[in-house]
């Protein structure tokens, strides 16, 4: 019998600290698979952000730099400009990237930095206990929208992939989900394309992952995973929003 599914090498063999059913674990593994696939273990510099994924460095068998909350895109700019032949990616949550880090991501994208951004949209600030994120859905209850997000006061859930695609400087922009095997397999392919964009020197690539946070959504992992398809995908449509040279996923 042949082993047809195994842990990627670039994923250090330690347990994740994530909550049961948290999609961060899946997304971590997908990133590690890409590092394996493109043999980037020796040339990658990862930029970790502050959020539930702050321990990225404990899990990825590559050089990692910890960025201040929200600044991963600027930090990665410095890294990539200094080491243009290394593979540089950031891994950022929606609080990190779409709230405090808005200016940094918009301008790194607009400059067309040759980096790959893994953006995890779980509609909340996970690590800090489930406060509203810019991506929180209308009506969603969080610890800082106890009566549900009300657009009149809190604004609308921001669609980062669409904003990124609007900027001239971006090369590859997509949104994926890992809430079922089919979406997950598509996400894998999209992530590879994002990696290839950088590897081929084509510029800035951005993949938004819709991700479940069962803990702060106060749902069972199953319920949380289902919510993605039921509530998130209709508002945050999946797909490739921009790419240099199209070729079917």
């Amino acid at each position, binding site marked *: 019998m042949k082993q047809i599914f195994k842990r990627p090498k670039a994923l250090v063999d330690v347990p994740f600290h994530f909550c049961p059913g948290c999609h961060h674990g899946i997304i971590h593994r997908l990133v590690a698979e890409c590092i394996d696939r493109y043999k980037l*273990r*020796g*040339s*990658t*510099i990862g*930029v*970790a952000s502050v959020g539930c994924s*702050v321990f990225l*460095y404990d899990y*990825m*068998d*590559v*050089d*990692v*730099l*910890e*960025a*201040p909350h929200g*600044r991963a895109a*600027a*930090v*990665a*700019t*410095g*890294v*990539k*400009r*200094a*080491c243009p032949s*290394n*593979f540089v990616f950031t891994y950022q949550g929606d609080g990190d990237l779409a709230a405090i880090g808005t*200016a*940094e991501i*918009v*301008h790194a994208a607009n*400059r067309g930095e040759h980096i790959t951004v893994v953006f995890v949209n779980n509609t909340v600030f996970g690590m800090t206990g489930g406060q509203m994120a810019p991506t929180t859905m209308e009506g969603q209850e969080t610890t800082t929208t106890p009566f549900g997000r009300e657009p009149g006061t809190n604004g609308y859930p921001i669609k980062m992939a669409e904003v990124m695609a609007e900027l001239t400087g971006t090369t590859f922009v997509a949104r994926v989900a890992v809430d079922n095997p089919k979406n997950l397999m598509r996400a894998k392919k999209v992530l590879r394309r994002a990696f290839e964009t950088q590897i081929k020197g084509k510029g800035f690539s951005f993949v938004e992952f819709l991700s479940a946070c069962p803990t702060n959504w106060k749902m069972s992992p199953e319920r949380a995973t289902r919510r993605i398809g039921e509530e998130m995908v209709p508002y945050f449509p999946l797909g490739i929003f921009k790419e240099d040279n199209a070729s079917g996923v």
Partner: protein
Amino acid sequence: MAEIEFVKGNEAIAMGAIEAGCRFYFGYPITPQNDIPEYMSRHLPEVGGTFIQAESEIASINMMLGAGATGARAMTSSSSPGISLKQEGISYMCGSQIPGVIINMSRSGPGLGGISPSQGDYFQATRGGGHGDYRTIVLAPYSVQENYDLTMKAFDLADKYRNPVVVLGDALLGQMKEPLRRHKYRKKKGEKDWILTGAKGRSPRLLKSLYLSEGELTEHNWRLYRKYQRMKREIMYKVEFLEGAKLVVVAFGSVARILKSTVAMARDKGMKVGLFRPVTLYPFPYAALDKLSHKVRNFMAVELNTGQMVEDVKLAVGHKKNQVDFYGRPPGSIPSPDELLEEIKKVYNKRVKK
């Protein structure tokens, strides 16, 4: 290279940086230091370097954090409000032990204030305006030549201690032009075995400031503290007219430069006044001043603010044992040598001639 050039203070900083091997500059415009990014944008490409005008001061300091983490010599520059915005980043660089050079050609505060010279950022620079226990070496030039020399030195110190280094000038030192003698940079030895370059053929490296297990961060802080203590080796200061001085004026940077004239005038008038100029503001030359305080009883701090460095002077000489007077001129106007002479006279007459 030994030719003498006539150079603006800001440009001397940029020249010193490039000569010292700085190949990455990240900055955001702000008066009165724009000659630095402007010079860098023109001359870095010539040496294969990279100039980036960032979207903000926060982005700049974080780009520098990124470049510094890979071992590159990198610099950012700004002026007071912009430096305030960099404080979180500086705290991170210290926590993660990533070197880099930060130029503050400070201007008037608080708030938008004005664009005239000021020394209102002394506390921020020497105590760390950001959060947590951290320190950066702070170098305070007082001439165009020192702008150049100390910037070069800043890069060596940053690498030596794996820590950001601040060069604290101000609008006066940035705008002033003086003859400058350039010289070749002699590279300090030393491999950087901590830098991020991709983990090819080695185990991965990690640069971070988060330490969560019990006691780990306490230990990390003590380790940093010991490093800051070691920085005392780098203490620099300059003295003038100390012979038989009855009153020692303590000042740094631009106001020290102005006082150079004042003290000479005072000596001409027969007043026994000396000048003590800290060149490293952190670490502060406490010991040297302390030693001096055994011979001289009267000190006077002069600053372009309402009183900041004077606290260090007091800590050094032990006020209540020695006299420490203060004259401050907060920003918005620059005191002339004559005006300062009047202030020194008042103190001299009160303390020495009494």
